[in-house]
């Protein structure tokens, strides 16, 4: 697998006139994410973008999935795709996606830097990510990788955005994996995702529930042990004895083993909205 990271100056030269690169935001195994600005056509202004450069050309299928999924749905609680294409940098061709830049912090970075998140902020994250899950499921897309790394907290904790549809699966598309295998991040997979079953939005709800338990306590509820989630997640009360009871009850239902027993996205949105008022 070729994962050579291109030089930033080279990238700037290639995108000259289209994007102005400010610097790296994140470097992962498969992609380099850069902060950049893009001139807004018909005006003198610029908009901030997150420019994602795929380093591994073997991930083409996955990138196309992301493009397809992102093109199907636009929502305030999802990072919106602005542009996509391929560029030649040196002797290599790279696929790139330009996303709306979300000013704020990824939930995982926030947890690493300041620890647990207040229940009210957790409820905001729950409401907004459930809204995003509902929006993509309306197009029969399952995100399949909801975890703190893919949840952006807007500046001032005013909202949350679900990012990275890189392994999202439109229900009609063929699997990227073999039977019984799955993509996703260990420690956040629903029991049915772990078993390689056909998924619905209820699987994303499970992953969101685990992410929220982690946000509430500052620690992953099973220390990233995926096997411990085989029969569902732990009780919130056992992780955080003073968690507000209604909030804990909602989280407990999100991480139950049987998907039909988890709250539907709409029910969660309503539940978290009520909680935000009282917390």
């Amino acid at each position, binding site marked *: 697998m070729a994962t050579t990271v291109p030089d930033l100056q080279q990238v700037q030269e290639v995108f000259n006139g289209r994007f102005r690169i400010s610097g790296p935001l994140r470097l992962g195994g498969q992609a380099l994410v850069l902060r950049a600005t893009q001139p807004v056509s018909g005006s003198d202004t610029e908009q901030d973008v997150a420019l994602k450069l795929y380093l591994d050309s073997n991930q083409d299928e996955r990138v196309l999935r992301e493009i397809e999924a992102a093109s199907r749905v636009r929502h305030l609680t999802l990072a919106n795709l602005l542009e996509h294409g391929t560029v030649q940098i040196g002797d290599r061709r790279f696929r790139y996606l330009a996303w709306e830049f979300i000013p704020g912090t990824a939930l995982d970075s926030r947890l690493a830097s300041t620890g647990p998140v207040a229940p009210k902020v957790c409820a905001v994250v729950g409401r907004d990510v459930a809204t995003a899950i509902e929006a993509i*499921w309306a197009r*029969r897309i399952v995100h399949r990788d909801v975890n703190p790394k893919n949840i952006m907290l807007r500046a001032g904790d005013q909202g949350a955005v679900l990012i990275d549809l890189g392994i999202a699966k439109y*229900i009609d598309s063929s699997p990227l994996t073999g039977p019984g295998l799955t993509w996703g991040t260990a420690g956040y997979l629903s029991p*049915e995702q772990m*078993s390689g*079953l*056909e998924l*619905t*939005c*209820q699987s994303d709800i499970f992953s969101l529930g685990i992410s929220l338990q982690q946000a509430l306590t500052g620690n992953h509820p099973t220390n990233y042990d995926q096997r411990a989630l085989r029969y569902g997640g732990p009780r919130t009360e056992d992780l955080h004895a003073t968690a507000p009871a209604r909030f804990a009850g909602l989280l407990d239902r999100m991480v139950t083993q*049987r*998907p*039909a*027993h*988890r709250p*539907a996205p*709409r*029910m969660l949105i309503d539940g978290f909205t009520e909680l935000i008022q009282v917390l």
Partner: protein
Amino acid sequence: MYYYCTKLNAFKLPPLCERVPGGGVIAASAVPYPQLARRSLMPYGHLQHRVLDPQLYLASLDPRTATSMVYKLATYPWFGSEPPTFQTGLHRTFAAYKEQVMPELLHRWPRAVAMDDEQIYRAVRSCLQIQIELGCEALIAPSPLTNTNTSYTLESKYLDAAAEVANELQVRVPVYASVAIADGLLRGQDPTQNVLLQTITDQIASRRELAGAYIVLEQAVDTGYVCVNEDVLFALLILIDDLSRGASKQAIVNYIGPFGAAAVAAGATVWSSGYYRSQRRMRLSDQEEDVGRAYPRFYSAALAGDIGVQLDLLQLSHTPLLQQVFSRTQASRSLLHALQTDTYPQSSPDWEYRPGNIWAAAAHYNDVCCKQEAFFDSHDQRGRIEFVDRWLCQAERLAGEVRRAGVDPTHTDLRHQSIWRSAYQRWRQYAQM
């Protein structure tokens, strides 16, 4: 709520019924569509609350061995036979229509369900449209029979088509997804770990356009009137529990006989049944064979099963057990009198054991089911759960006593009670209810 399941085109309740069920399930195979569309349903009190079972799960029937059934089903557009429209001027009578179109319909019968998106959409749309025109109180979306271990992908396409059509037609009544499962898929597996069940309820729970599921278990293996497999019955209760308690959806259960009462205790909103074997169980091979005429059987609510009329009831009439197993209804009054006065069958000709003499037995079955339903209506779920528990425990005890009294299980149902009780109690333990 107890609904009467129609058989053939006899929509009338048995003549001696004193109680009217809360509603009716009209099976597509009961009557050809042109006939159903033109039939006034006003005279039938129980059909004022009606649903139509599209029975797409019968799509694999062989027209050579199930000719009559296939003809009737093929007149509904969702089976893909492209039925010609009935025209009074052209066809004059339904008999003439049948004579004219049946050979072609049988020839075009695909013996398979629509597979591609466009065909599925058309099938589902026609199905829901017809149910709206028939004034159904809820719509049942068609779905193929699930008889192999699948990822439920094809069935999910039918669910999505139903959701899409419901939005397009701005349907104002609840839309249920058909869930038809061959019982072979549920046997020999711990239902709490059966991923098929989990997938089915997940797929329905996640579609908010769907109010719930209309559940039919195909009784492919057991040959009797009732299901006698504990895993299958427990699986049914889990399906209902997932939908009702888990996803706040509703469940309608058909073709499960008196076990429907246990389904209601587990959270089903409607159970449907009827006296005939074909109203109590769904079995593909039943549609393909000439079953002949039915004999009277006496349904005992206390026993949760039938007692043979010819010999077994007479035998019990000389023991104190008769009082315990005898369910009293208007239709069974003459039978009780005859048994108590040793004048059976002379003083109770409605119950004489001869083929086709089933009206009293059918009315009795209906009235017992309605009575049970009336009890349910006046109790909350907790009360229903306890009632069914006591009922099944009592039925198990009585089955033992009846057997010890020398009654042979050939014509009297004495085998299933302990299985039903065990399945039910396993569900209670699982659901902590």
